């Protein structure tokens, strides 16, 4: 019994010492930690594709409008971004994310705000390959003329990634295929680069090159 008591005491000491180390490390890193904003429940709900949770989180006054992460991204931008390789998964994500756009806009998410690199929600959706999200954003009046620090527009990003439907939709909305990046690259050049780099998406890139040539 005495032995068991000593073991218990030692276990408590070890637990206390471990916790002490954690607290010291926490204190030592608090300066750096403070610069990392907490992930908001809104972002978690968006990532999980949980509409019910998003509604509940958005109801907390002013949170959607104020949300800004360390890269300067808004809730709308987080909803407009996925990075998936499978077409089935991408289509499912597009469906879920598109349903979130009107809700976020209703709660005053800024439509055309740009992050630290100059990307807007429309640009994130164009790169991600989310045609329904792009549709929602354009329907609400998102600007397709905005460009990032390198001079990429939403059309260029969609052309670079081989997202045919989005290129078509942006052209229909009046996006200019002739606009260039800071280095003089056009959407057509970017689609050609994509064709060389990703031969498995040959059909998409060729269709994009055809659409851009028509304009």
């Amino acid at each position, binding site marked *: 019994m005495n*032995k*068991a008591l*000593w*073991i218990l005491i*030692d*276990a408590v*000491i*070890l*637990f206390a*010492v*471990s916790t002490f*180390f*954690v607290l010291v*490390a*926490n204190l*030592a*890193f608090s300066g*750096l*930690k403070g610069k*990392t*904003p*907490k*992930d908001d*429940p809104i*972002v*978690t709900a968006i*990532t*999980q*594709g949980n509409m019910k*949770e998003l509604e*509940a989180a958005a109801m907390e006054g002013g949170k959607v409008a104020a949300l800004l992460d*360390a*890269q300067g*991204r808004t809730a709308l931008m987080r909803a407009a*971004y*996925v*990075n*998936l*390789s*499978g077409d*089935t*998964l991408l289509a499912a994500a597009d469906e879920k994310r598109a349903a979130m756009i009107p809700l976020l806009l209703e709660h005053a998410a800024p439509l055309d705000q740009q992050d630290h*690199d100059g*990307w807007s929600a429309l640009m*994130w959706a164009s*790169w*991600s390959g989310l045609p329904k999200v792009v549709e929602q954003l354009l329907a609400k009046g998102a600007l397709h003329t905005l460009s*990032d*620090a*390198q001079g*990429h527009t939403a059309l260029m*990003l969609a052309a*670079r990634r081989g997202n045919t439907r989005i290129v078509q939709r942006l052209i229909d909305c009046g996006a200019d295929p002739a606009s260039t990046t800071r280095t003089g690259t056009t959407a057509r050049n970017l689609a050609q680069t994509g064709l*060389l*780099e*990703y*031969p498995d998406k040959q059909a998409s890139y060729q269709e994009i090159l055809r659409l851009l040539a028509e304009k």
Partner: protein
Amino acid sequence: MFNAVTRYFSEFRILKSASKDFWLTNAIQFFDGLAYFSMITVLALYLTTNCGFNDMDSGVWVGIYTLYITAFMFAVGSICDVIGIKKSFYIGIGLLAVARLGMGLSPEWLRGANLQLTAKGFIIIMALGTAFMSPVTMTSLRRFTSATTRATGFNVYYLLMNVGAILANALVVDGFRNGFPAIAKRLGALHLPQGALDFIGNGFGEVKGNLAIFDFGFVMAIGALICVILLRETNYAEPSERLEEAHDAKRPLSIFMEVWKEKAFQKLLLFLALTIGVRLVFTHQFLVMPKYYTRVLYSDFELGLANSINPCIIVIGLIVLIPVINRFTTVRLIIIGMAVSAASLVIMAVPLHWILTIPFIHNVTQAYLFIILSQILVFAFGELIFMPRFTEYIASVSPPDKVSSYMALSALPTFISKPINGFVSGILISRYCYDGIRPKIETGNISYNQSPEFMWMIYLILAVMSPIAVIALKNFLTQQKPEAVAATIEEGSAS
């Protein structure tokens, strides 16, 4: 090579005489390994995606989990000596079952701060449960093997542990998160129900898949529990050890008090502290890699498959390479192994556009796949050289009567470094490998000092310090009496 494989497996024939309890212990370890290795691969992702921790906090809490495992492990050996194997297994598996089920189910019911607090509680419970498993399994294997079957018995244990790691990653992690589309296509011709085909083809997806991995861990705990019920605790393979063990129970901290003033122990601590930089690379596998893989490639990347390559190489290497490697001296191999392990980060730290100039690499995805695969292969080779000799070195510098104490306390430097590494990894990931970095890399918005490659450069510098420091202090670290080394190696390998 064929001869090496035959020789390795022919040793296992000796285990025909091993008791049912030896195999039950291996089954417990196998079930627990499947659950542990699948869980640890997704833990950082689970905390972020399912519980809403930011990158910083998820890194910290994975660090805290490993820290508490190390801390609790000091106490568990003594607890096991007092209460016995079966009760220790019951406590460990019981804690793991509760924690895994809790972590699998709580994100379904709780949200926000409540969920995060609950997850933190379950992480501590899980750490306590995990800490129980390894020392109790070791005691159990030792008890159920005789002097003649012990070495082979431990080989089987190590082999099964690695096989468990391979299956956990390649089948459990990828199966639940992504499914196996190629297999689903082939099964389509068999007219299976659509629901089954959908699951095989797509899994549960990232969010539900993570939860299913924890639920799977709970089921494995039940499997392990059934094996414990069937275990006969008093079935000693060497009856003479029954008496020895009865007197073995010690205060957990007594081993530290016994050795902390010894010069040899202080020298060992210095050696271990010098090697922290490179040993942190091992923790990257679960702290940094899952987020790195899914962010620089894509969220549905088969990270289980990537993580199963390392144990595959270790298994093959143990069989084929170890006899060749063992011809070299311990310290030289430790230095070479550490240098190779550290060098595995070089390719991750070079600017991406350098990789893109390699003739057969055409795009960013191929470049990152090349980087990841190269790192895994080089690191596994370094680990293969370094790890077995590392344990041997600890045994060789310990006084003959204190090998097990030195072994137990060799975890001390990592005990201090684990929470620090948790914080550092969290800070680095949130700055250099945040969710959404891939499009910025591909469009030239990220300079080298903002890129994941820069993060690896920081880790590379830390890792490279280890072999350099050991080379610089080699003479000081290896001053010992030759006869003591011989005696302790013998004892170390027996234990």
